[in-house]
Structure formats: C-alpha cells, structure tokens
C-alpha cells in the first residue's frame, strides 16, 4: 500500500521536471549558425583591422604556456628528412613547482592550488567566436602557387611556430608499393599534379578517389556567400588541404560535435597514415568506417555539424555507392612511414635498437602503461575512446581566449606509429613535443616515472 504515494510523488517530480525542461530555452543561434548581420565589405574591413590584436592575444597565450624556442633533437629528422624533431619539455610550469613535486601531489591538491600547467588545459582556437578552418602558411602559399586558389583568411592566421608542425610537404607511403618508399616526389599533391604523379602506381578506382579528395568544395569559411572569411568568392577547400599528402599539416578547426560555440574545443588535423588499421574515426563520434567518416566530413569538417548552413553555401554530398568507396579505398592504401627498428609484431628488434630505446619499450609496456591503449601489435591503437578525466586537476568552466575549458570526455586513441612526424600532440594540439606528452601522461596517470624512464620513452617513440 505504501508504494502508491511514492509513485504519485515520483510522478509529481517527473511532471515538474518536464515543465522545467520546456521553459526559457536558449535562442536558436546557441545551436545553429546565425546568418550574418552585416555586408561582407564591412565585416572584412573590421576583421582585417582587428587581426593583429587577435593574433597578439593568441601569441600571449602561447608564450605564457610554452617555451616556443627552436631546439631540435640532434640528428633526428621527420621521415621525409625535411624537418628536425623538436626536443625537450616545452610546457611551462607554474611558479614554485617542479615536474617531480607536481607529480607527488594528488589531483585534488593540484586543482585546489591551481597548479596544473596551463598548457595541459584545452588549447583555444585563435579566434574562438568565429572558429573554423585555419591553414598554415606553407599550405596556403603552395595551393596558391599550384592552383591559384585562395585559402587564406582575412580575419586570422595560423598560430603555432613552424618548428612545431609536420614537415611540408610530407612524404607519402603506399601499402600497395612498399618498395617505392616516398612517392610524393617532394611535392604537395593537388588537383593539378596528382594524375601525373600517380599514373601507373594506383588503380583507376583509387585515382578517382584521389581526384575527389583533391577537389575543392564549399566550406563554412571558404564559399561564395557573404558568410565567408576568404577575400574572394572562394572555390572552397579540399580534404587534402588539411590532410596534406594524406598526412597532416597541423591545420586546425573546432569540434563539430559540441555547442554552444564557446565550448567547441580545438581540433588538430589527424594524419591519414595507417587508415587501413583504424577502426573508429572522429575524435568524438567514433564513426565505424572510413566510408562513414569520408561521407560525413561534408557535414562536419566542412560545415561544423550544421546541415542547415551547408545547404545555403552549396554542400557536396558524395554518392555513397560509388564516390565514397573510391575515396575510402584511396585512403586505405596510405601506409605509415617505415620504422626499421620494429619487427613484424611492432616490437623493437634488439639487434637494431639502442639500450635506451629498449628500456623505453620496457617502460612503454610496463610502468608507463602506454601499451594499455597504444597496443603495439594493432598499430599502437586499441580502437577505443578513453576519458583521461583531466578535470580532476583543474576547475572546469574557466574561459581562456574565448574558449570555455570543460572536461574533454572520451576521446579516441590515436596511433603512435610515425608519431615524430605529427606534432603538435593530443586531439587539440595542446602539447608541442613528445617530451611534453610524457610529462602529461606521467601526471594524469600518476606514473611517477624517473627522468631516465621519461627520456627512454621519448627515445623509444622516436623509433616508431
């Protein structure tokens, strides 16, 4: 009998909740992209006048967070031999702590005392309120030289110093032709040169996939409407404008998967190398095939997860039965760079590796717990998403350069094969060097690694 009043009370609570959830919702532009209120010439003039201030803000933030100096590791180059790999921990510590004293504290203590290094928190977009794709200058200049296509924005520039981005153009390795090595001829693949570079090497289906991946289509900031950030009516952007030579040029964007705008975290472009072994796609969405991802990028990287805005600017939806599989098949023959010290099961060959590298592998598999997620045998992936729960270390909700720093939630595991070629690190590029990533995980996972162990981990990752 006593059950019934309880049920009635529960129903009353439920109806109260239902009423509350319906009232005073946020305006539509909290989810949908608002239409511009001013003509393009006015917006452009204002954006251009504001640009130096915008860049100075981001520069101040970067300098506050990182040691940005150019300090390469001696004799360690990225796979194409065009760019050295940067050395050392670049994350600045708060005053009064060392890495060791910090890792001896509990997450609660670090949070309460505000001692988490700022660089471990989410990295803001250079202009959070506007957001969108931002390309590094080398990419902009080369696309302009080859295609006379403009992918320069009038409101913002790329923010990270050149030494912390991948070599340009990156080499291209094919699973179908391992004997050839880098097939890029040192060039950036574009719609103007892909055919002559690839004829006789790839199949017709792969060739057509590549053509589509190199064909510009309208995008949120690069299109023909007044709501754009290119000076001219833009031809749009291509998939490989970010995934340069199927790798990455560190072009960045914001996650399409979060609203409102202030909460959208930055995304660093992911390499497409080793796509054939990657089972989930999109840092947040866990799409289950490269076909799904290729198809849906037109809704996300191109239009921020806003199909309404896309419709107005001219969306290109590749045909699922024919075009998408060809694009996917092209991506699936992109290999990792060679790792001559790894055996067929992706373990170090003791006859080739140094003592320090072997020690690094032991830490990687053991005390460092890296291999819990970055499983060597499966291309250093586990095809899962994990939540590092970084919010244990800082108070969420702080606003930095317009970005509201919130808990990241689960993010997919990224591969570590060829990792020295892919700075900056983490899904938003918040870490600049491999040594930074070691300090990050040492703290977040509570590993208490010694300096020797940390150094050996870096040496090991350079062999991957």
């Amino acid at each position: 009998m006593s059950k019934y009043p309880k049920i009635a009370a529960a129903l009353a609570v439920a109806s109260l909740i239902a009423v509350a959830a319906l009232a005073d919702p946020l305006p539509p532009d909290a989810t949908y992209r608002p239409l511009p209120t001013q003509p393009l010439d006015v917006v452009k003039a204002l954006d251009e006048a504001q640009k130096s201030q915008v860049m100075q803000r981001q520069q101040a933030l970067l300098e506050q967070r990182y040691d940005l100096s150019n300090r390469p590791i001696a004799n360690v180059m990225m796979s194409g031999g065009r760019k050295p790999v940067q050395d050392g921990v670049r994350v600045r510590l708060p005053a009064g702590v060392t890495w060791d004293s910090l890792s001896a504290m509990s997450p609660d203590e670090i949070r309460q005392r505000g001692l988490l290094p700022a660089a471990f928190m989410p990295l803001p977009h250079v202009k959070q309120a506007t957001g969108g794709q931002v390309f590094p200058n080398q990419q902009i200049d080369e696309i302009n030289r080859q295609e006379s296509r403009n992918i320069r924005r009038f409101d913002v520039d790329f923010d990270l110093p050149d030494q912390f981005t991948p070599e340009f153009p990156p080499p291209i390795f094919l699973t179908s032709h391992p004997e050839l090595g880098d097939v890029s001829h040192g060039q950036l693949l574009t719609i103007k040169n892909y055919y002559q570079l690839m004829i006789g090497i790839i199949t017709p289906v792969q060739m057509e996939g590549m053509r589509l991946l190199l064909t510009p289509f309208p995008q949120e900031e690069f299109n023909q409407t007044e709501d754009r950030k290119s000076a001219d009516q833009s031809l749009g952007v291509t998939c490989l404008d970010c995934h340069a030579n199927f790798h990455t040029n560190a072009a960045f964007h914001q996650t399409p998967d979060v609203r409102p705008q202030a909460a959208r975290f930055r995304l660093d472009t992911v390499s497409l190398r080793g796509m054939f072994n990657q089972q989930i796609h999109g840092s947040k969405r866990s799409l289950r095939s490269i076909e799904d991802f290729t198809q849906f990028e037109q809704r996300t990287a191109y239009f921020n997860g806003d199909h309404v805005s896309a419709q107005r600017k001219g969306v290109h939806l590749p045909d699922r039965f024919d075009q998408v599989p060809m694009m996917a098949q092209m991506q699936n023959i992109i290999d990792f760079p060679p790792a001559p010290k790894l055996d067929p099961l992706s373990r170090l060959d003791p006859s080739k590796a140094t003592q320090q590298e072997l020690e690094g592998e032991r830490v990687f598999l053991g005390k460092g717990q890296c291999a819990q997620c970055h499983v060597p045998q499966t291309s250093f992936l586990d095809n899962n998403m994990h939540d590092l729960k970084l919010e244990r270390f800082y108070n969420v909700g702080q606003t930095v350069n317009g970005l509201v720093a919130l808990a990241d939630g689960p993010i997919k595991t990224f591969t570590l094969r060829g990792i020295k070629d892919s700075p900056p690190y983490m899904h938003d590029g918040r870490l600049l060097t491999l040594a930074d990533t070691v300090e990050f995980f040492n703290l977040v996972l509570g590993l208490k690694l010694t300096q020797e162990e940390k150094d050996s981990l870096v040496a090991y990752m350079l062999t991957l």
Partner: protein
Amino acid sequence: MRLLTLLAIAIAFLSPAAFGQSTNPVSPAPGNPGGMPPGTRQSAPGVPAPRQANQADRAFINAAATGGLAEVDLGRFAAQQGASRAVTEFAQRMVRDHSAANDRLSALAKANGIAAPDKLDEEHKAMRTKLEQFSGPQFDRAYIEGQIIDHQKTAQLLEYEIGSGENAELKDLASDLLPTVLGHLRMAQAIASEMAQRAAAETPRTERPSERR
C-alpha cells in the same frame, strides 16, 4: 581561479589598451564582426564600445535574472523546508552565491538600460507550488532535481553569452560565474546520488526491483 583573477588584475594594470582591446587571454575575446548588429558603436574596429548589448546579451540578462531570482527564492524556501543538512546547506549557499551574482547582474542591466525581470517567472512559480506540497526526503529530492536542471541550463546560458554576447562586462560576468555554477551543479549531483543511495539502502529488500523474481 585566484591565479586567473590575480593575472587579470596584474595585466589590467600593465596594459594601457583601451577597454575591450586587451591582448590578455582571460579578458573577453573578440567576436565575429559578421554577427555584429549594424550601427554598433565601436571603441576599436570590430570591438563594440562599452555599454551596448546585442540580442544575445539581452537574452542572457533576461534568462539569467529569471534564473537568479528563482535560485534565491527557492533557496530561501529550501533552507527552511529541507529535511537533510546537505540540502539546507546547499540551499543557503544558493541564496548567498546567487544573491551576489544577482546584484552584479542587475547593476549591469541597469547600467546598460536593459529591463531585467524582477518577479518569479511562471515556470519557477509552478515549481514553488509543487515544492510546497512536499516535505521530508520527497521535498529534498524534488528541490535537488530542480536544482540540477536549473544549473545545467544556467551553465549553457553562460557559455552562450561568453560566445555570442558583445557586451564585455556581461561576458566577463558570465566567465566569472561559470566555474561557480558548474561547481553548484557538481554539488547538487553529489547530493542527489547520495540521496538515491540512502533511499536504496532504506528500502526493504523485498521492494528492490532488481531482486524481484
């Protein structure tokens, strides 16, 4: 937060930049001029002059003032009616924190010439009426459930203002309040799960659904 505040103060003293033009990353970030209402007065190109409000600012003032009033009103009520100490202490804290926030908000609303609501809205009147029917643990549960939803909504509202507002003072206020509001949300969630656990422990074994056959 204290570090950020100190930093903000330090930089405010160091920087001769005009209001709203700061390069300090914790000051309100520049908006997209594409969304600026035509005719907006500017203190620098693309930087709205102080004491102007766009539609997001107005929506924010309206919703934040409504929510703030309700927080204080329901908090006062719950501080008296709450059964558990956790709930009455939470309610007292809501009165204290939201009164302070309401004062800041109404001063800014007044300075910007925007009328803010000064009476409880229909939604929260209805909630108050519902709450008046409850007592004991039922009251606690209903109050805390409502608080979780209200703080979720407030957090999204503050984030919306931070990204879409143009009034630097209001955006600053939103940035200041957001960590506190998220802290309140965590507190309310912790109280709710504690109450749920206690209720489960107090339910006679035969009534536990998972053990029914």
